């Protein structure tokens, strides 16, 4: 999917050099530069949206260079005849012009029309040919709006969410965390289903399994809820295909020829299989499922088509519980987890490392480690654990309700 660069209506040596470099940097950023999208402010995490920003932002960036250069030609000193838009692709059909008129409210008063423009765009997305967001159409909107204050203003001790939840339900404070995260997950399943399809549904199912403390190994035969197995498999393949030439995202680990006998046996590797470590950081719903995982493919994706045969991971959280693997014998990701290998996550350790000493004064908010943004999605895990830090899972006074990691070993070969 290549860039659709706009025509630049400004001229001059400075502008031309800038535009050339802009396109090179944009393509490096979009196609080659690996980064953790979760570190970005939310409006920038979606790569396809980021691509649009890069494409459309070029004209204004070039305009600033033109203004600074101050040389002769279109773009300098506000000559309206040099406007880059006349007409635009936003106004080039009767339907699009009608949209503008609708948003303006057709009051034919300059001030009123500007107010209407802003209000209509904000309040009534149905003016676009898409379904209106209403409580009837999307029942999760109502409960979510009730909880928004707590989502966005958790307070220093993250207690605001509980208070809001209790007020909503007119109940005394709850002792167990189950009902609270259950509410969030029920909402989340609807939301993430809309957002991410198969992997969106699976992400909620995996989180529910963690919070229910089921433990064990999640496989292709486990309960997948509303998630389609073939859909998840297709999403993983699509992600790998996009990033296959980027070794930061799709990093070769082993092949069927070089893997240890233990690996070959445990994962059923054939000689032609290849094993990659795959980061899903640029894919919100897959990242919510797996983060970084080991994936077995039928062949190297750089050299041709391939099949996703197996995915291996440990499902744990640095703001909840984490698993420490010894990598001795069969103690590696995807194999059953010994409870004694479960320890508090690295955000609860004084050194920031899961093998480091516990920081007992850890609060839920410090464990979450985010400033408002991305807060809600981490709350069920960090909140169910509660404050504090424990070297072993069984040391937690309410271990069974504090969440529990499990391993993931999905054989996609027959899906």
């Amino acid at each position: 999917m290549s860039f659709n660069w706009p025509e630049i209506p400004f001229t001059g040596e400075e502008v031309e050099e800038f535009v050339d470099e802009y396109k090179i940097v944009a393509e490096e950023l979009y196609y080659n530069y690996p980064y953790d999208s979760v570190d970005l402010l939310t409006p920038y995490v979606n790569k396809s949206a980021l691509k649009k920003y890069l494409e459309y932002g070029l004209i204004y960036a070039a305009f600033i260079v033109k203004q600074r250069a101050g040389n002769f030609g279109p773009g300098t000193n506000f000559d309206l005849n040099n406007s880059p838009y006349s007409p635009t692709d936003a106004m080039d059909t009767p339907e699009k012009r009608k949209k503008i008129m609708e948003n303006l409210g057709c009051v034919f008063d300059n001030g009123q029309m500007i107010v209407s423009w802003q209000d209509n765009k904000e309040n009534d997305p149905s003016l676009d040919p898409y379904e209106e967001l209403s409580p009837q159409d999307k029942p999760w909107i109502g409960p979510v709006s009730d909880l928004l204050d707590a989502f966005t203003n958790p307070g220093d001790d993250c207690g605001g969410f509980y208070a809001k939840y209790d007020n909503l339900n007119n109940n005394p404070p709850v002792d167990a965390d189950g009902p609270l995260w259950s509410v969030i997950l029920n909402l989340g399943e609807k939301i993430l289903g809309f957002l991410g399809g198969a992997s969106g549904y699976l992400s909620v199912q995996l989180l529910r399994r963690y919070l229910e403390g089921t433990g064990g190994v999640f496989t292709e035969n486990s309960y997948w809820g509303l998630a389609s197995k073939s859909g998840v498999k297709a999403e993983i393949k699509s992600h790998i295909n996009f990033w296959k030439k980027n070794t930061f995202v799709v990093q070769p680990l082993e092949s069927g020829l070089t893997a240890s006998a233990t690996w070959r046996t445990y994962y059923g590797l054939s000689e032609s299989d290849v094993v990659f470590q795959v980061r899903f950081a640029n894919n919100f719903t897959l990242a919510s499922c797996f983060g970084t995982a080991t994936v077995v493919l039928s062949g190297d994706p750089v050299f041709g088509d391939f099949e996703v045969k197996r995915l291996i991971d440990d499902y744990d959280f640095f703001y909840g519980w984490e698993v420490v693997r010894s990598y001795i014998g069969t103690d590696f990701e995807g194999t059953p987890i010994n409870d004694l290998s479960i320890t508090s996550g690295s955000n609860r350790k004084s050194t920031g490392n899961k093998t480091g000493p516990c920081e007992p004064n850890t609060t839920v908010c410090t464990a979450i480690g985010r400033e408002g943004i991305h807060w809600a999605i981490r709350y069920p895990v960090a909140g169910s654990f509660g404050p504090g830090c424990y070297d072993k899972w069984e040391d937690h006074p309410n271990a069974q309700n504090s969440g529990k990691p499990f391993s993931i070993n999905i054989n996609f070969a027959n899906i």
Partner: protein
Amino acid sequence: MIKTTYLHALNYLNLSVEENTSLGIGAGSTISIGSSLSFFDIFKFRDPMDIAPTGFLSQSGFTTITEALLNGIGYFPSLDDENFHVSPNTVQGAMASVAKAMLVAILDDNGKRSTTVGIGSSRGKAETVINTLKFDSKRNYNAAPYNTWRNSVGIITPTSISRSNNVAIVTTTPAHGLSTAFDDWGIVMKLNTGIATSFNISTSIYPNGVPIKIINANTFAYKNIGINTLTTSVTGTADVRVGWGGTSINLHLYYT
């Protein structure tokens, strides 16, 4: 297919969407309806001083709920996603923020007053873009653009100040020395006592200060909301900053 309202936003049509009243930045928009529909519009950066990216900008309605939810879970939809309607203001603000990030990454001198493509690899420039767009606690403040963007470029000494209709007028002694060849000056006002402190600028809200308009060699003005105040002698300093520009970054648009 991308939503029409987003297309308008990405084509800079805003009708004062980018207006930032707290900074005194207003766009001049005119609509003309005769035998055809015409717009005269101006696009400029919402914050003409700083480099930090904008977040969600919706202010009312279901869009606000949607955006708060998306912010809570850290997800942003594709612009052609039919299930979520984020504000066109958000889309336009994000585009402008990316344009800023590209300018500082590509031009030398951290993108300030420069038209020269800087040396360095495209990988390094891409890294600067990403660092610009990170949220606060994830930024590398020892790397571009944050390592130098908010640097002071001088200190001037206000000796008196007044406020009328939310505009502060500052007199300096000696002359402030700011060249009128540039309209990208800004200040962080740090006055010492009494009512004078109501003129101060918080860097937690405006990390690179607020834009000023130079009146003459000894006076300048800036937007400052508060009660009308007669000219008052003051002590303190004004920390001078450089941003993107005033009217020189107004992209005048004519849609018809």
